[in-house]
């Protein structure tokens, strides 16, 4: 080949490689940006006075005196609203059926939305659900609600060739020249005094349990559940995996049976994770009856089976990669086989084994399908360590899915969902980072 052609080939390969890397970096940024940005919203957000009230009443956090002053302040700002509503209700009472027919439905819709924004209206019974006992606790949700109060959302279907076109009309037009019309102007001007939004850093999001199906509170049960499941899986998979790897690499030799065994282990790594989940349900729970229904233990065992092939193969590779000369040296000094493995081969293979463990740990933390049938529930308390033997737990991976698909008011708690995603990603990244650091330390020590 001509020198010119070779150079061109080299250059084009470089270009393609760089292009691929840039593409991946860009997509990573595009992927991570909303996770980080919106996930941070679970921790740092503007809270309204309702949130401070909730914190005080439900959890006893914050200064009672300060919050009470704020409540008095906001009550004063809200009073004209309530007065206007009372006046309009009286007007309706007197106005006769025609008046009621014209405004009844519109007013009750408005009243409901105001109750959602500000919390229970004066004279209302205290509702059962916590979410109805308080107004909007987050300023971003309050603004969305406020927008809904100001504008009526309508769809225009007049053009058959187009999808319905959204039109927003001021709600005040519905109540034109009634006594409640000034309410909208008043809200517009005083909404901040009524809610007192303030930037807050809710670091306890990680360590609080959730209240009222994730409407309030944090994700500690999920974090803890993920932690238990991943660690439990490692507890079973690591010793079993390393012992198997030692057997395969040092004792098994080369027979038909052993190569069949290797093939089986490799194929096991390719089995879809949902199949492992069903296997866990059928084997650990239904057959072995290790727990009465789902439990963290059953989930850990299932996850252990999922990561076992990875641990075995990677550890075996690591053991086989240890130079034969180390083994010879140890043997020539009179070390037995077992001693050689423990004192020379395993320490030299430690980096590789550790890598496989950490990768598996990250995988076990993130897997969803295997725990659906074996360990995960949508809401739960943080478990003590002995409770993991018999009780199920929520976990980040499964609850991200669960919140997105099953929650009755998913739009209201998007921040929780993103917070969970951010936490899970951070956990896995942190694990991998630890792995890289430990690996670097050990291989530096080994290289001298």
């Amino acid at each position: 080949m001509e020198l010119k052609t070779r150079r061109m080939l080299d250059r084009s390969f470089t270009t393609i490689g760089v292009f691929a890397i840039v593409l991946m970096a860009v997509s990573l940024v595009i992927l991570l940006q909303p996770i980080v940005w919106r996930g941070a919203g679970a921790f740092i957000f503007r809270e309204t006075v309702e949130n401070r009230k909730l914190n005080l009443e439900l959890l006893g956090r914050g200064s009672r005196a300060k919050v009470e002053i704020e409540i008095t302040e906001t009550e004063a700002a809200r009073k004209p609203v309530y007065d206007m509503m009372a006046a309009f209700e009286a007007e309706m009472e007197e106005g006769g059926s025609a008046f009621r027919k014209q405004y009844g439905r519109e007013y009750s819709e408005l009243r409901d939305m105001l109750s959602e924004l500000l919390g229970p209206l004066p004279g209302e019974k205290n509702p059962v659900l916590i979410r109805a006992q308080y107004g909007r606790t987050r300023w971003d949700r309050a603004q969305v609600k406020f927008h809904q109060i100001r504008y009526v959302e309508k769809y225009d279907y007049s053009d058959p060739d187009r999808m319905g076109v959204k039109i927003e009309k001021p709600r005040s037009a519905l109540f034109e020249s009634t006594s409640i019309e000034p309410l909208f102007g008043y809200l517009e001007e005083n909404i901040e005094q009524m809610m007192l939004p303030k930037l807050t850093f809710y670091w306890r999001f990680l360590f609080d349990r959730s209240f009222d199906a994730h409407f309030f509170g944090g994700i500690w049960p999920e974090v803890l559940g993920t932690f238990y499941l991943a660690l439990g899986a490692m507890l079973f998979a690591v010793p079993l995996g390393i012992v198997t790897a030692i057997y395969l690499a040092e004792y098994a030799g080369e027979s038909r049976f052993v190569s069949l065994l290797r093939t089986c282990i490799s194929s096991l790594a390719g089995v879809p994770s949902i199949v492992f989940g069903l296997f866990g349900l059928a084997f650990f729970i239904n057959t072995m009856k290790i727990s009465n229904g789902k439990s963290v233990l059953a989930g850990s065992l299932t996850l252990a089976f999922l990561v076992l092939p990875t641990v075995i193969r990677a550890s075996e590779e690591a053991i086989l990669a240890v130079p034969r000369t180390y083994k010879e040296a140890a043997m020539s000094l009179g070390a037995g086989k077992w001693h050689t493995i423990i004192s020379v081969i395993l320490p030299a293979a430690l980096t590789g084994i550790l890598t496989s463990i950490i990768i598996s740990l990250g995988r076990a933390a993130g897997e969803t399908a295997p725990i659906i049938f074996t360990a995960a529930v949508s809401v739960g308390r943080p478990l003590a360590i002995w409770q993991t033997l018999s009780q199920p737990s929520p976990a980040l991976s499964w609850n991200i899915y669960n919140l997105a698909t099953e929650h009755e008011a998913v739009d209201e708690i998007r921040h929780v969902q993103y917070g969970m995603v951010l936490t899970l990603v951070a956990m896995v990244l942190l694990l991998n980072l630890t792995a890289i650091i430990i690996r670097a330390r050990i291989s530096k020590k080994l290289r001298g």
Partner: protein
Amino acid sequence: MTTADATDRPAGIALGIIEFRKDMQLERRPLIGSNGFYVYYGDNAAVKNVSFDIPEGLVTAIIGPSGCGKSTFLRAINRMNDLIPGCRVDGELTLDGQNLYAPQVDVVSLRKMVGMVFQKPNPFPKSIFDNVAYGPKIHGLTDRRKLGEIVEHSLRQAALWNEVKDRLGDNALGLSGGQQQRLCLARAVAVNPKVLLMDEPASALDPRSTSRIEDLISELRGEYTIVIVTHNMQQAARVSDLTAFLYEGNLIEFGETKQIFTKPGEKQTEDYITGRFG
């Protein structure tokens, strides 16, 4: 350590000008004996019908062209060949009169008696101290002070003590190639073996390190029975008392090094040492 310069040494293999050891005592008793000894890899015999006795306390060199079975024979002495699948032996190989391949032989205690230094330096990825202490430790010594004494003594024997005494905790892989090989020698003598096997111990080293290893062999002579396999005929002539010449698995000639290199009994030996083949 003797500070023999390279210039003191014979420059070439030209017959007659090599100075041999004056203090040869061939009346020593044989320590390792082979009698009709074979080693097979599968169906191929790598060592065929080899019979000769290696006397105690001397340096015996095994020379021969590549693939002649000299390393195989050496590794048969501490049964390192056991690690190779499909390897089996026939005939008799004895140490101190005891058959090494008898079923009741404990390989671990055999290897404790027969130390080995390999072609490529192969220290463990551990500290210098732990490398030397490894052998005594696996044989049950735990006393830290005693271990320290053994480590110092062994490193002194390997002429490495002065270079590493201030950094015994450093990783052994940080040493130079020659230092690593001397460390391996120290590691081997730390278990106090009777026999030291050396499989081309200097072939991966530069000339300076090679000469230090050769000096060491001369110093250890008498204390240990040393069997050295080498490609380098000058080396065999310089360090050994006795020389065995192997060719295609057969023992062609065995005798005093002086005699082998000056008046070889066989035509093949002469052709080999004068460089006509090999």
